[in-house]
């Protein structure tokens, strides 16, 4: 368990570069010895260079062009025009607003509720804990497409078990059209995304909790602190690295997590109610073949998300209370 939290912290600072071990030997080594590390690295570097960094640079390049992806069609250099138009592009305003809704909607399911559950249920016995762990983690290993298909069945307006149950218990008169009601659809996608994450996130918080030194809690109890005070003044501050880490993950990945459900379940509809920035990039790229738009938006969002990540890492290093 201790190891778990250690790795988690390391993870929250993925950007920190490990200092090289100072093991420099005498100068003048044979060529093979000098290039040896690079030979070991070559396969991985090639794969990651060709399939991640090369396309990233090319996306930035393509963002200055107008092109429809046909190899025979001309690429027209348009300078910064794609960027200048960015927020007036079709559906961009809606996609951007929805993206914020997704982020804020998922946050309670990925951070607040899991943290509360982890704190409240921390008194559970070891054996029961193992069984609950195995069950609440299950959604995390199920493929997004399977998740989408199953929830589509459960949420089906006329035959789904949820509407059937709600009607049987007289909670509703008419079936809810979860995916075709423009007010409801985005919340259904948020719910499904949260369903997949909530157990995993709870386990992350419980791992972090079990790592907290019990002496603090006992000292506070001796001083007569109430349970609420212990949570407010001891547990939450000590959990702050994990809290920040989970908030960062949610903000950064909300759009990617929801993409699969949007693409399988709603295609961004009804009336663009569920589209988000990444779904829009996909549409620009592979539906309307507006490579320039897609690339310019991708570049801007990549930079934006990188800045958010950087801020969180800075904040985490400054604010975090480390239990030591």
């Amino acid at each position, binding site marked *: 368990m201790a190891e778990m939290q250690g790795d988690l912290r390391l993870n929250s600072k993925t950007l920190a570069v490990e200092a090289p071990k100072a093991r420099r030997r005498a100068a003048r080594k044979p060529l093979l010895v000098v290039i040896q590390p690079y030979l070991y690295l070559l396969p991985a570097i090639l794969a990651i260079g060709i399939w991640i960094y090369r396309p990233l640079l090319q996306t930035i390049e393509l963002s200055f062009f107008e092109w429809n992806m046909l190899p025979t069609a001309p690429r027209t250099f348009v300078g910064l025009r794609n960027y200048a138009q960015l927020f007036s592009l079709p559906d961009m305003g809606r996609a951007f607003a929805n993206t914020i809704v997704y982020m804020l909607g998922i946050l309670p399911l990925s951070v607040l509720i899991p943290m509360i559950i982890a704190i409240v249920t921390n008194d559970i016995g070891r054996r029961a804990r193992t069984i609950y762990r195995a*069950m609440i983690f299950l959604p995390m*290993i199920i493929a997004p497409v399977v998740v989408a298909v199953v929830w589509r069945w459960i949420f089906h307006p006329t035959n789904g078990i949820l509407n059937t149950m709600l009607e049987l218990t007289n909670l509703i008169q008419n079936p809810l059209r979860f995916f075709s009601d423009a007010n409801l659809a985005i919340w259904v996608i948020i719910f499904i995304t949260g369903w997949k994450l909530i157990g995993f996130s709870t386990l992350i918080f419980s791992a972090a909790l079990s790592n907290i030194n019990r002496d603090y809690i006992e000292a506070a109890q001796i001083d007569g602190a109430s349970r609420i005070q212990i949570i407010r003044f001891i547990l939450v501050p000590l959990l702050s690295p994990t809290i920040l880490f989970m908030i960062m993950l949610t903000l950064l990945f909300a759009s990617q997590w929801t993409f699969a459900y949007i693409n399988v379940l709603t295609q961004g509809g009804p009336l663009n109610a569920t589209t988000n920035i990444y779904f829009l990039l996909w549409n620009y790229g592979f539906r309307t073949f507006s490579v320039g738009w897609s690339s310019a938006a991708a570049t801007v969002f990549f930079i934006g998300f990188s800045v958010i990540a950087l801020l969180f890492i800075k904040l985490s290093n400054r604010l975090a209370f480390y239990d030591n």
Partner: protein
Amino acid sequence: MTTISNAPVPASKSARRIPYVSHALLIFLSFLAVFPIYWMIITSLRPASEIYSPSPIPSEITLDHYIRAWTAIPLGRMMLNTVVTAMSQTFFQLLTSILAAYAFAAWSFRGRSVLYALLALTWLVPFQAIMIPNYILLTQMGWRDTLWGLIVPNIGSAFAILLLFQSFKSFPQDLMDAARIDGASNWGILWRVIFPNLRASVASLGVLLFISSWNDYFWPLLVTSRPENSTVQIGLQAFMSSDMNLWGPLMAAATIASLPVLLVYLLLQRQVIDSFVKSGLR
């Protein structure tokens, strides 16, 4: 006394009350997590006549939906594609990551920290920011709708390198030095000294990579356009869109698509959970 933490403090048994609130919360959460999966499996086993029944247990169990699903879409072919893809990706990702992590752990060399930072930063690059150039390259190579296209671009994993580097780094230097004095080459040290000792971490990373690769949706979506050339995830999506009301066969296909991962989870549930929690997110 409140029992806030479950830390290994020898609390007297009599002082321990049963945490009803915790059990209630966790039972609710467990139900929420397990019910959809249960409902998928149980729908797939119901006779077609009771497919809309809200009863949690079917009157009889039948494999009809599986047979229909198997004949309606090239499920066997797609499963085979997925097995080959996921196994190959896992194998090559482990291989390239072991080599790279060893290079980072064993030597200090020019460009080391830059390369490490570049690996760590890939985490920030979303699929949607690189999909168009990758699609173009795939098309130029003639790899669209092929297993090559599914596998080759995914033989490297920055995430696996970083995770393995953490374990390699903590490997005792003395053992490596002793092997070197005995005349072992670097290659020999890696495979005869380090690897056998870290087999457990490599294996649990392998399980994690296999599950991610099996469940991957983005990459196959980009590479393949025909279900028979794709993985079972894309096939399942195509099946769902093609006929909305074949719920039994659809749930059967979804169950088949989840089966390998569910089996791995049943057998290695502790390791799977630990490696997911450790790795932050995948």
